[in-house]
């Protein structure tokens, strides 16, 4: 009995010790962002500006939301993001505002205008910049770890990572038994009809879900589709992004589209755009939502 107690105390101490170690890896650390740039973190940043809605979501999710001092106009999740100071859009941010907030870390994506980036780098020599460029679901997961390391929230980041990983594995298991790939049309606009190519995040998710996107070419990323094309491909499922403003009724009553398998079998659905387009932690929810639409309706 005593031996057991002793062992368990030692065990507990060991666990605590190892968790303390994993809480604080020794600074300074060196990390590489998605562009291969090396960023040295001497001190965990206390004033962070996020220049995209997805990085805002990641930072909140890993518990660094309180250190955010600036976000874009489009950062709308979680609710707390709406209370943060706004610095403009993500293609035309207000440089002066950003500089005056004196951030020590700025997170941005590769699609950010280079000129503005150069200006910011020049005007803020003591600020670290992390540039992200995720192309797939896995890349997003890696982004989360990266940001976790950069702000000293590696454990929390790992939890989010695991959550995403589990979600993926779960769905992957379910999907292996799918024999017939449903043909999917995802609409983001209806006048003209615009869909998404396989080279987008969404396209990647659909691929992982073994769905067959009726758009086959990688370019353009958001192709305009003719009615003839849509009909000739005859999608089994039509998914509408909620932000497109297209109503289900519009599709169901459309004189041409009502001849598709999707409408005939009542397989027209909507999904929250932010869940499937944003390279952030909620991608796993989007993934699950898509699975439900495709196979559990």
């Amino acid at each position, binding site marked *: 009995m005593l031996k057991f107690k002793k062992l368990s105390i030692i065990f507990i101490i060991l666990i605590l010790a190892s968790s303390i170690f994993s809480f604080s890896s020794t600074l300074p650390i060196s990390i590489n962002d998605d562009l291969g740039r090396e960023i040295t973190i001497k001190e965990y940043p206390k004033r962070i500006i996020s220049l995209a809605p997805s990085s805002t979501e990641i930072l909140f999710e890993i518990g660094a939301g309180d250190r955010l001092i600036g976000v874009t106009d489009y950062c709308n999740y979680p609710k707390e993001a709406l209370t943060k100071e706004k610095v403009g859009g993500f*293609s*035309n941010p207000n440089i002066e505002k950003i500089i005056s907030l004196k951030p020590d870390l700025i997170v941005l994506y590769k699609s950010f205008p280079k000129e*503005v980036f150069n*200006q910011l780098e020049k005007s803020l020599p003591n600020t670290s910049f992390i540039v992200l460029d995720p192309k797939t679901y896995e890349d997003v997961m890696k982004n989360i770890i990266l940001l976790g390391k950069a702000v000293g929230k590696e454990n929390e980041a790992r939890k989010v990572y695991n959550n995403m990983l589990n979600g993926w594995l779960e769905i992957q298991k379910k999907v292996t038994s799918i024999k017939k790939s449903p043909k999917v049309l995802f609409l983001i606009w209806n006048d003209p009809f615009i869909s998404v190519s396989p080279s987008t995040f969404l396209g990647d998710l659909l691929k992982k879900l073994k769905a067959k996107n009726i758009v086959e070419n990688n370019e*353009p990323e958001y192709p305009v589709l003719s009615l003839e094309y849509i009909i000739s491909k005859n999608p089994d499922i039509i998914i509408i992004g909620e932000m497109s403003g297209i109503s289900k009724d519009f599709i169901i009553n459309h004189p041409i589209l009502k001849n598709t398998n999707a409408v005939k079998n009542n397989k027209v659905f909507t999904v929250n755009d932010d869940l499937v387009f944003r390279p952030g932690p909620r991608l796993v929810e989007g993934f699950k939502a898509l699975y439900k639409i495709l196979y559990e309706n």
Partner: protein
Amino acid sequence: MKIKLFLLLLILIFLSIISVKIVDIEGNNEVRGVIIYNIRLPRTLLSIFVGGNLGIAGAILQSLFHNPLAEPHIIGLSSGALLGTTIYFLMAGSTWDIDPLFTPWSAILGSLFVLFLLLTFNQKFQSSNTLILLGVSLNSLLSSFTSLLLFLKQKTFQGVYFWILGGFNGKSWNHFYILLFYSLIGIPWAFLWRKKFNILFLSEEEIYSLGISLKKIQPLIIILLTFLIAPSVAVSGMIGFVGLISPHLMRVWETADYKWLIPSSYLAGSILLLSSDILSRVLFYPTEIPVGIITSFLGVPFFIYLLIKRQ
């Protein structure tokens, strides 16, 4: 008269640079200094020179084509610049791989290509009537070609989109130096030739009769216009309306005599564009509105007011 304009310009420069209303700059003087020097000063100077150059170019074109609707973008130099930039962005692959310092040069290269076409065709058709038709057709063709490229390669579209709308966000001293270099040639040249533009407004026979050989001077004017227009578009994108309205504002205000019109169109263009830039930053702070949108909102009501007052 010109003194009034000068004073107005000075006030605007002051506002653009120093006004604290534009941003609630907390922090110390060092931060303010960085912002003023790195960001506001180049922007202000760029607005002045781009607005001025486009104003003069518009005045010259209205004389050359005897047409009050003529403005800098109709002769195709601007769409050449746009095409040059688009091709560069395409070749670079993504907006990140673009060197912002090279972008203006890709635009200038595009314009030079158009200049070459214009001069070649001008050899054959020496009248200004054919030149305007040529310019308009080139404009159309190049814009369509650019649109096609952007449509097929949507990734490039993002980078080019804001360039098309025109604006000074993110522009640095380097952009200004490029513009300054060409302006130091173009502006004095336009000034020295200002009396000629009065004559060019007349019919072709009258032009020769008054001592100007149109066939000799037309290619030189095309080159002068390139000096004025191409670098302006190269550093700030397509800003419309300034080149069209500035000369008209000054015509109504005072006179159509080009001795007055050339320098005053410069000042009017600078004032219009600088005011628009200030408003574009202030109106929906911190989001910045593309400056090309503001210029018509500012310019048109004032123009109509002047027209009514002069009646």
